[in-house]
């Protein structure tokens, strides 16, 4: 798939935030197609629990910006039904933690109907939700479960990490005939920066190299991207050139981009805020051994969250999460530049 530019791309580069970029994407989608509507808890009058849909109710009315009761299973399932009925629902779940109440609908209906029906029933739904930790919200509001969803055939799973992706991933997600899950890291909403004028829609399923480098590939996504970029800066100061690969799509994975990068750098560090065991980072590491076994000069390193329900206390939460420092240390180990830390290599 190749990236195409929209004819009406934004006139010039301008400052915005991740949150506003998401909102603009929603607004565009609602304007472009009458079948598109947004529903979820507090998306309307409240403007979304993280303020993403603020102002959309006023513009599009309560029919298309639909507040739901606290009934995740019912409104996600209803979104799936509405998609079967010819609409293009965008369902917002406040956070991935609450999506577990709708997991049955997502897995047993959205992801399987096409196949179970022998190809008769595609489910063109988009489900957005917040993910991630870092705000001292404790164990029921902080987990990164997108890797679980990336396990499921029949779903597409996206994780916009940049303002441009926040702005441009929704349109192709809606155009896709199958269910697409979009994970927005809670720590990114306030990110501000420039929205490049030429950044048109991106093809689904494409990773992006956010920073080229030659010595080690930092493979990451979502809320860990800024941390990996910070780590790359620090590594550069120490003479290590890190390439930063932003997965963007967690399912399917862009094997080609990942593999190309590691074929050039010969070292890989996977950074994933989710737990390590049975995770997306494990999947990437496995694929690297399948595709890049003879390119690798060292074992694949992984920087993940500690395997603990996320603690509230600030110091404990910080210690539980990947940090630029732990990414730097892993990269140094990978390239064999580690201070002797007692680890057997």
């Amino acid at each position: 798939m190749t990236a195409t530019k929209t004819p009406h791309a934004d006139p010039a580069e301008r400052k915005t935030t991740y949150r506003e970029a998401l909102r603009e994407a929603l607004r565009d989608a609602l304007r472009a197609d009458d079948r598109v509507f947004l529903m979820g808890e507090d998306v309307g009058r409240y403007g979304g629990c993280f303020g993403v849909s603020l102002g959309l109710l006023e513009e599009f009315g309560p029919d298309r910006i639909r507040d739901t009761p606290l009934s995740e299973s019912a409104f996600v399932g209803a979104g799936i039904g509405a998609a079967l009925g010819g609409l293009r629902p965008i369902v917002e779940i406040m956070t991935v933690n609450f999506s577990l109440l709708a997991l049955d609908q997502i897995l047993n209906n959205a992801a399987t109907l096409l196949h179970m029906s022998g190809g008769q029933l595609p489910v063109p739904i988009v489900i957005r939700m917040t993910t991630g930790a870092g705000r001292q919200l404790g164990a029921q509001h902080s987990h990164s479960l997108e890797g679980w969803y990336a396990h499921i055939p029949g779903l597409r799973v996206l994780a916009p990490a940049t303002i441009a992706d926040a702005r441009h991933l929704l349109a192709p997600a809606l155009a896709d005939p199958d269910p697409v899950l979009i994970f927005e890291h809670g720590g990114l909403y306030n990110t501000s920066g420039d929205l490049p004028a030429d950044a048109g829609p991106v093809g689904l399923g494409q990773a992006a190299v956010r920073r080229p480098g030659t010595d080690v590939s930092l493979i990451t996504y979502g809320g860990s991207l800024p941390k990996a970029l910070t780590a790359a800066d620090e590594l550069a100061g120490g003479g290590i050139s890190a390439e930063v690969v932003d997965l963007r799509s967690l399912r399917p994975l862009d094997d080609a981009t990942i593999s190309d990068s590691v074929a050039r750098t010969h070292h890989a560090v996977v950074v994933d805020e989710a737990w390590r065991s049975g995770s997306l980072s494990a999947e990437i590491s496995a694929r690297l051994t399948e595709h890049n076994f003879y390119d690798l000069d060292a074992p694949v390193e992984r920087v993940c969250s500690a395997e603990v329900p996320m603690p509230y206390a600030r110091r404990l939460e910080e210690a539980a999460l990947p940090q630029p420092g732990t990414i730097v240390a892993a990269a140094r180990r990978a390239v064999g530049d580690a201070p002797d830390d007692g680890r057997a290599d």
Partner: protein
Amino acid sequence: MSTTRTPRASASRSRSRSRPDRQAAHRRDLLHGMLRVRRFEERCVELYSEARIRGFMHLCIGEEAVAVGVTEALTADDAVVSTYREHGHALARGVPADAVMAEMFGKVTGCSRGRGGSMHLFDAGRRFYGGNAIVGGGLPLAAGLALADRMTGRPRVTCCFFGDGAFAEGEFHETANLAALWGLPVLFVCENNLYAMGTALSRHQAQTDLALRAAAYGMVSWAVDGMDAAAVEDAARRAVEGVRAGSGPHFLEMRTYRFRAHSMYDSDRYRDKAEIERWRERDPVELLARLMRERGELPDETLTGLEDEVRAEIDDAVRAAEQAPEEPVEDLLTYVTSPPAEVNRP
């Protein structure tokens, strides 16, 4: 296992009803309980703005009569299951203020050793089962605690607090049916404060008479003025008696209101300021204080005395929380699974 039990009057009922001076003393206790919660949370607001408390924090200011009145009707053996808006439930239940405060400071002396924060207060010794930040998440637990009591023949009650928003979740409806079907000793206490975050009751419930709907499950079900501590306590005592007597789960819809925003992150733009003001006229603390004044039970020095006592308790709690140590980072992975020695302990 028998499904019926002998009725047993709540321990303190006759005591609190017998003589006018006892009633006055009891009202003073209720007022003290509510003031404790109110002042504690007001202090939390200050501490939050100083970033000494972090995360999501939900206040029950305006809803104190429910926490205090209901727990008054429970015995120490009964269990309480709560929500993320649980400071009042925890304090009323007897979780020490310094353990609650230290928890919000993320300190090792906190009632959840700093792992939980404001939304996850626990105290197993006081049978306070938390502190649940998944809306409706505590309801099935309450049924299970009650089932365990039923199956082991313990005459205990499990009280579960939850909101009007939670009433829309499958968790509520599945649990209500199960508890009623099995006649489980659960007291469902729905704190109907008219909002689920920014969504008004009439925008998230097709039928807003929640007590009516709960009754459809075959439970005894009443709507109660949740701003009147005495009315709350009275209803809770009767319901607890019924539950303990074996007549199955009871449901109380507590009609109440939160005076503050949903959480510290909420800008509270979805409701009319006049509506808040109208409800403030029925402030549960004021309402009881007014009644006591009318009865000549609340001379100024009594109120000052209560306020002083409460302030001292909170000052101590804050001081202790400030001085308490943090959990060392080396202990990050404790309590993920039980220590080996405890796994197979009989």
